[in-house]
Every structure is written in structure tokens, then in C-alpha cells.
């Protein structure tokens, strides 16, 4: 009976803090074996959702159902908590050695000393911190403390692992190394996981599915590909990196799945089926906008070609962000090599192209 259906399900949950509703989720599920990201800005409620899913927060309303059974008593809460693990944003280690910290969840479960130390040692090894076993937890660096807290969570072999901003406050190399180790261990151990993060790239690298949280509500949940490329509203679009969001009006829906959209005095061709006259938002990912200095329409197969002037060029991680004025604001990411070979500079005129399929159209909410 318990094999079918979602591993964890919440129904109609409401969480209030100081009389204010901070979480309101009608239905949400975590499926067996998936890695799910809870994506949202600071204060959106993703940490609250994580605490709720791990039964650490009092519900004002609603149900938490694990393997088909409702968690509705202290006893069932304890049983549930012994099948999950939570990694908080701060490592929250106990004042003991690294090995004893990693074994602490097993000790709480009453496991014998030799067994728990053997398992703890195994996970220290997996997280590459075996050499720290005898060190006091008070003498660890930020990265080491984080690894210890992750090893402690894995050591209990949880059915679901919850991680709250696991890579925050780490320097980039430490962060990179931890992301790749965590991805590997999740895969090796086939652990179901839910990760709260505000970083879409982290979410994209780690998870199969994403849920975008906006003001305590789930704005969109779906596969990573679906959320990244087909956001349901402007909030999700801008949060998942659709840098250009333009307001427009559908002019004509001329054949089956193509339409022209008026954006200011320009027209953008897009894929979709909205009625003429409909107010819409056109969302375009910056990496889908290509720039050239050739004359228009020369090499591009793209349906949308616009001349524009470079307003600003700014470094953006491995790319450069180019802000263009094409009669509307358009943002493109290009590599350093392209920037140099095209000799781009602020004020210069360029041609910007993007395919009709690169335009994601959303109905504008009134």
C-alpha cells in the first residue's frame, strides 16, 4: 500500500508567524528518488517550507503525509524525524569531535558505539574529511564544518534529506567542490532530497525538479527544464534568469503556432497561440540573444533581428552582460572572446537576433 503515491505530501498547509500567514500551500509532493529544489528569494518562505516538510514547525492548518500515513502525533513525528535528516544553513555542530558529531544521529537512535563509529567514519571518507575525525568541531573552517554537518545527515541514511542553503557563505572553490561532492553522494546513495536555495544555477545543477516560492506560495513547480524555459509569471521569469521581460500586445495570430507581438513600435515574432489583442509578457533569456556587427539579415536564420545601441557592458561571472536599446530594452550575455572580436563598446550600434522559439510568452496578469 505504501509503495505507490508520493513519498511525502502536504495538503492545505498554513503556517502563521505573529498572526501573519507565512506559508500557504494547498498541495505539494516529493516523489521517491527525486532531487527537488525550493527556489526563491530571501524571505520567500523556502526555509519555512523546509522546516514544515521536516515536521519541525507547528502547522496552523493542514496535513503532512509520509508514505501514505499522516504525521499527526508526537510519536509519528519522532518516527518520521528518524527517517529524515536536515542540514541547516549554519552547520550547528555539537561541542564534540568531528567523528562524534557525524555519529550523533545514530547515537540518538540507540545504535551501538562500534557500529555508529564505523558508519560515521565511512561518511567522513565520502565527504573527504576523514583526516578531521579526531578534531574538535570548534576548530573547523566554514567549509569543513559544512561537510561535517552534511556527513552527519547522510550517516543516518535518511529516506529524505532536507538541505537549507547548503552552499551559502562558502568561498567559490569550496562551494564548487561541495556541490560536485553532494551531487555525487546523492546519486550514489539514491537519496531523495529537497534543497532550499536562492541560486538558480545551484538549483539547475542539483535538481530534477524545481519549485519556485513566492511570498509563501508555490508560484510554479515542474521539471528544471520546464521552469527555466516556461515560467508561468513575471516573478518566476525574472527569478530563473529571463533577464528581458517586455510588455506587449498580440497583433495577429497568423498561422497555427506563430504570432506577432507589438512591443512599443517594434514587432516581435514568437511561438504560441494567444488571441489577437491579448496583453502579454515576452521573456527572453540573455544567452539566446546573439549580437553581430554585420548588416541585418545577412547571416541570421533568426526571425527577430533588431538594430540597437549598446547602453552598457558589465562583467557577469564568466560572461559579459550587454544592455541594448533596440527601441525596447534587450539584454544579451556574450563571452570575452566575442566581446573582443566584435570590438563592442558602449554607444556602438549592433544587430541583435533571437529566434521566435526563444521568446517565452506569458499572459499578462491584470
Amino acid at each position, binding site marked *: 500500500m505504501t509503495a505507490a503515491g508520493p513519498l511525502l505530501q502536504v495538503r492545505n498547509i498554513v503556517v502563521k508567524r505573529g498572526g501573519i500567514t507565512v506559508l500557504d500551500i494547498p498541495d505539494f509532493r516529493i516523489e521517491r528518488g527525486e532531487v527537488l529544489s525550493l527556489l526563491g528569494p530571501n524571505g520567500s518562505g523556502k526555509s519555512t517550507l523546509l522546516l514544515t516538510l521536516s515536521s519541525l514547525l507547528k502547522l496552523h492548518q493542514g496535513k503532512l503525509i509520509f508514505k501514505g500515513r499522516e504525521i499527526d502525533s508526537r510519536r509519528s513525528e519522532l518516527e518520521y524525524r528518524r527517517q529524515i535528516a*536536515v542540514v541547516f544553513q549554519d552547520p550547528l555542530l555539537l561541542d564534540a569531535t568531528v567523528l562524534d558529531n557525524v555519529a550523533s544521529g545514530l547515537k540518538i537512535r540507540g545504535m551501538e558505539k562500534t557500529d555508529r563509529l564505523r558508519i560515521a567514519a565511512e561518511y567522513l571518507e565520502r565527504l573527504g574529511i576523514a583526516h578531521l575525525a579526531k578534531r574538535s568541531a*570548534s576548530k573547523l573552517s*566554514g567549509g569543513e564544518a559544512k561537510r561535517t554537518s552534511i556527513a552527519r545527515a547522510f550517516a543516518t541514511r535518511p529516506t529524505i534529506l532536507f538541505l537549507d542553503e547548503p552552499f551559502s557563505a562558502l568561498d567559490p572553490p569550496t562551494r564548487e567542490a561541495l556541490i560536485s561532492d553532494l551531487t555525487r553522494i546523492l546519486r550514489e546513495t539514491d537519496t531523495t532530497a529537497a534543497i532550499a536555495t536562492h541560486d538558480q544555477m545551484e538549483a539547475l545543477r542539483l535538481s530534477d525538479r524545481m519549485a519556485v516560492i513566492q511570498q509563501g506560495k508555490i508560484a510554479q513547480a515542474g521539471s528544471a527544464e520546464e521552469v527555466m524555459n516556461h515560467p508561468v509569471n513575471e516573478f518566476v521569469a525574472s527569478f530563473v534568469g529571463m533577464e528581458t521581460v517586455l510588455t506587449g500586445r498580440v497583433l495577429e495570430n497568423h498561422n497555427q503556432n506563430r504570432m506577432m507581438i507589438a512591443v512599443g513600435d517594434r514587432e516581435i515574432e514568437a511561438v504560441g497561440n494567444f488571441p489577437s489583442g491579448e496583453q502579454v509578457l515576452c521573456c527572453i533569456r540573455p544567452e539566446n540573444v546573439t549580437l553581430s556587427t554585420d548588416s541585418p539579415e545577412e547571416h541570421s536564420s533568426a526571425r527577430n533581428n533588431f538594430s540597437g545601441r549598446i547602453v552598457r557592458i558589465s562583467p557577469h561571472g564568466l560572461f559579459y552582460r550587454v544592455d541594448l536599446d533596440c527601441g525596447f530594452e534587450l539584454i544579451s550575455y556574450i563571452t570575452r572572446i566575442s566581446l573582443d572580436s566584435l570590438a563592442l563598446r558602449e554607444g556602438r550600434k549592433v544587430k541583435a537576433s533571437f529566434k521566435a522559439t526563444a521568446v517565452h510568452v506569458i499572459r499578462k496578469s491584470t
Partner: protein
Amino acid sequence: MELILEGILKAIALLVSLDPEVLGITSLSLKISGTATLISLFLGVSTGTVVALTRFPGRKLVVSLINTGMGLPPVVVGLFVTIFLWRNGPLGFLQILYTPGAIILAQAIIATPIISGISLAAMQNLPANLRLQILALGATRLQMTWLLIREARLPLLAAVMAGFGGIISEVGASIMVGGNIKGYSRVLTTATVMETGRGNFDVAIALSAILLLLAFLINYLLTRIQQRERPR
């Protein structure tokens, strides 16, 4: 000047020769204050932990009362304990006035709020999410409470020492409820008061030196504890 110098020399002689009376008083002081500290440790840590971990109406008032209690004047405690233990007082039937038991009772009353107050602060100073983390590790409420007390063990030790330091050097209550009876209820402080009154400065200085040494040891350990770091 000569008086002081002579007093110090005689005091050293008393300490070095392990004078039986000085040793007896010291040993009785340690026994009485040690027992009172143990009682306060149990009551104080329990109260501090319960108040730190629970939310109830009037909690702020309780915290204020504990904090006020940390500065309870020993003579006031002495007065009330005397009244309660007086022959026809509410606890007169115990017949323990002017016994070491009465001093233990008074000192436990003085030390309990000190240990409660410091325990409360120690538990509240633990990271806010540590409690949730321990629960998330699968702990029962009892396991969580025990682990939190363990995490706060060093500040709790500081609480114990502050309590012990407060009562070993206290004189008002001890003299009022113990009566300073030679070989029975005479402790370091009451003996110092008496010997000073009699002009026996050598004995008074020797006793004071022992008190100072105890105070130093306590403060040295407290400083060591306070400078230790907690894990992230």
C-alpha cells in the same frame, strides 16, 4: 605596619604547620558550601533549563525574579531562614537552627538564583536553531534537553563556580543561622569576623588567605571557560 607584617608571618606559620583548627574550619566550609552548591546545581539548572526552553504566561516576570534573586542580600536570607527555623516558626519542628544544616539551607537559597540565572542565560545563548537541529537528528524531548545541557556544560560549570564563590565568601546568613559554634558551625568567614573582633589578626589573615586562594582558583577557571569557543 608591624602589626600587619607580624600577622602575615604568623599566618604563614599557621598554614605551613597545617594548624588543625584552621584546617578544620576550612574543611567544614568546603563541606557546607559544597553541599549547598550541589543542591542549588540541581534546582538552578532545572529551573534555568525549563525557563529557557519553554514559553508560558508570566515568563518575563519569572526571569526578572530570577535575575533579582541573583543579588539576594545574604543577611535578608539569613533573617528569613532564622524566622522559619525558629522554635515556633513554620519549620521550627526540624530543629536545625544553629546547625550546619541551617547554613546549607540558607546558602542553597542564596546560590540557587545565581545558578538559575546563569544557566538560563547559557541555554539562551546556544544557537537558536540548535534545538531544531537536535530534534531533526531524531531526538526525543528528553534527549534534546540533555544534549542542550551538555552543549551548555561549560557556562553551566561557570554557573556552579559563581554559585560556590558567592556562598563560600558569604558571612551574614552563616553567622545568623549557624551561630558560629566552634568545631560545629564555624566556617571561614564567620571565623574571620570573630578572630578580627578578638584582635587575633594572624588567624584572621590565614583564614582570609585561604578564602582569597579559593576566589582566585574559581576566577581563574571561569576565565579559562569563558575564553573557549563553541563550534559554528
